[in-house]
């Protein structure tokens, strides 16, 4: 992944020079350690602003919208599956978009790294699987594999599924016996403990909606929480209202979520919002054999009816 940025810049410069795309959407270097920022490059001479590293945890499919011209976008495996989902859901047309696919070796869990330090991190660098992180008080060398984001840890689609060009060689996909051990664990809790788990999960939520706004699936022109006529949900810190937002948003993502983890990456309060969406991902996989964003032709399970669909819930 360290060398792919050279290729990303070359490809971008070429696309812009030939006028094949209007802009290239990628990541730029941040102003603080472990931060990157989505950027749209429109001029060839600006391609050196592009970076790609293990801190590019947001999902760039979120920045792709219907427009007149063609745009290029740099995608990881998960971003790429969201582009497919966008196409399936008729948000963009395939020929509107030029995909620079990046076989991904995983993004880092920034809060987990920050938690190792008593003071603020001042420098972060990486060399393949080795991370070097320094604060004023100490420098630590870490194995990237031990500090992957939760979703990257369970990822089985590191390689882009749909692309026009690759920025690096494909990587080996990991084979997991169980894709959802974390969900299984919550499922074993009794009713009260489960309730407490989710109550505790959202207790610090400030309703900034960073999770929703970082999510490529949340493109509704007006979200149900912002609807004011009629108003569906209270806007304050009442627990029921806070949880209603989280529950409904999760259900709205059922069969569509690629577990990219942008929601968790964006949350300023460190809430693992994926505890909601992953249960639904597990259900959709078990009930319909479906993982989002792998197929441009098949209709998603919540879009269609088949006579053999499970109906055990009808008593």
């Amino acid at each position: 992944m360290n060398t792919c940025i050279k290729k990303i810049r070359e490809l971008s410069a070429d696309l812009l020079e030939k006028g094949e795309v209007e802009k290239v959407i990628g990541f730029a270097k941040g102003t603080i350690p472990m931060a990157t920022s989505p950027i749209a490059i429109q001029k060839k001479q600006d391609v050196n602003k592009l970076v790609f590293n293990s801190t590019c945890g947001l999902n760039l499919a979120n920045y792709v919208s219907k427009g007149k011209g063609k745009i290029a976008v740099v995608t990881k495996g998960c971003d790429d599956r969201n582009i497919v989902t966008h196409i399936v859901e008729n948000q963009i047309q395939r020929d509107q978009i030029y995909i620079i696919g990046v076989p991904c070796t995983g993004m880092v869990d920034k809060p987990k790294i920050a938690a190792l330090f008593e003071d603020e991190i001042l420098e972060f660098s990486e060399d393949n699987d080795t991370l070097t992180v320094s604060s004023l008080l100490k420098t630590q060398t870490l194995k990237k594999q031990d500090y992957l984001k939760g979703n990257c840890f369970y990822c089985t689609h590191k390689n882009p599924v749909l692309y026009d060009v690759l920025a690096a060689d494909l990587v080996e996909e990991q084979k997991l016996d169980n894709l959802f051990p974390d969900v299984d664990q919550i499922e074993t809790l009794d009713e009260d403990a489960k309730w407490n788990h989710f109550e505790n999960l959202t207790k610090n939520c400030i309703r900034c909606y960073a999770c929703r706004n970082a999510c490529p699936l949340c493109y509704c022109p007006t979200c149900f929480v912002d609807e004011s006529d009629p108003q569906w949900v209270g806007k304050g810190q009442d627990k029921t209202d806070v949880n209603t937002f989280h529950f409904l948003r999760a259900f709205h993502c059922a069969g569509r979520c690629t577990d990219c983890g942008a929601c968790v990456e964006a949350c300023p309060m460190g809430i693992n919002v994926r505890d909601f969406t992953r249960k639904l991902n597990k259900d959709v996989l078990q009930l319909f054999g479906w993982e989002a964003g792998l197929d441009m032709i098949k209709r998603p399970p919540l879009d269609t009816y088949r006579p053999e669909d499970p109906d055990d819930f009808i008593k």
Partner: protein
Amino acid sequence: MILSNKQKGYTMKFITIDKNNWTKGIDKSRETYQLFGPVKDENGCLIKKLDSDVQPDMGYYESVMSAKSVLFPQTEKILSASLDESLEDHHIMKRAENDYSPRAVLGIRPYDAKAIALVKLNFDTKEFQDPYWCDAYDVTVFVGLGITRPGPFDFSTSVGTGPFCEDDLDILLADLDDHYLAKILTPKGDAFAITCGFDTMADEKESQVLFDILRKEAEKNITSRVEINKLKDKTILDLHEADFWDDLAFSCINCGTCTYVCPTCWCFDIQDEARQKQAFRFRNWDTCMSPLFTRHATGHNPRGTKVQRVRQRFMHKLKYFLDKYDQGIMCVGCGRCVKSCPVNIDIREVCNMMNAYEKQN
């Protein structure tokens, strides 16, 4: 340093507080004061109301959220009415019965108190006084803790505050390992210290010298800064039409993080809710990043695009506020938004860009 009204006419003094007596004193104050302070949990550190068995975490490094919620909760019940038509006063909104017994907020960063002073410019004017905020302000004692190790995102010294700034504090503490040296700045602070039983006087001259040394040392460690000297002379229209807003706003996802973590953002929304035979009026934090913030009942939205909203936030903080009150910019340099923004929009860069902007003819 600007003396706040409550600091005027009071001769400050110094006391020392042995850390072995700290908890006992704080617990003693609970009989009179509702306490607020830093509390750490698995998601970071927040300034919260302290339950009777919870001690403030005075050793915290940073808090994700500021102390603004002590006076301005994210959701606050302000009015209530009965919907029971058999009652004479049904449907008549009355002020909700909130608890305005004395409060003390412990261990806040000095710039968070400065932020309260900036918010006060808006909530407590000659013409209008926000009763909820002002009543809470009047009963609150602000106990600050000087910052000896400023973080890399702290740019407080370039925006008129700093790690040992005394503005709007009632007490400023300096952590000296086994004890705190406390500078009592107001009668309110004095009353709180007396309630805690903290009364070991310290030598005034020596203590002030020590405070000065600590302040200078801490200020020296602040490397992050912004330039604000030219903002005042810019015209609003020039800045409004500057060429950098589109690029700046591209990455913004329009969440409310920057405004909610900001100690000086004070915009709110009013909501009415009814439960059975009771009606309530609440005010909630609102955010200029949300399209709903300005959407009219007709459906028209004067600030309908993302770039307009991003521009509004920075223009308000760095230009409109400065022009309106002439008390500096509406930012205390805490760096919370820099750190929490999911897409790394950095107010320091924006501020410098605005300050350096020259209109091209």
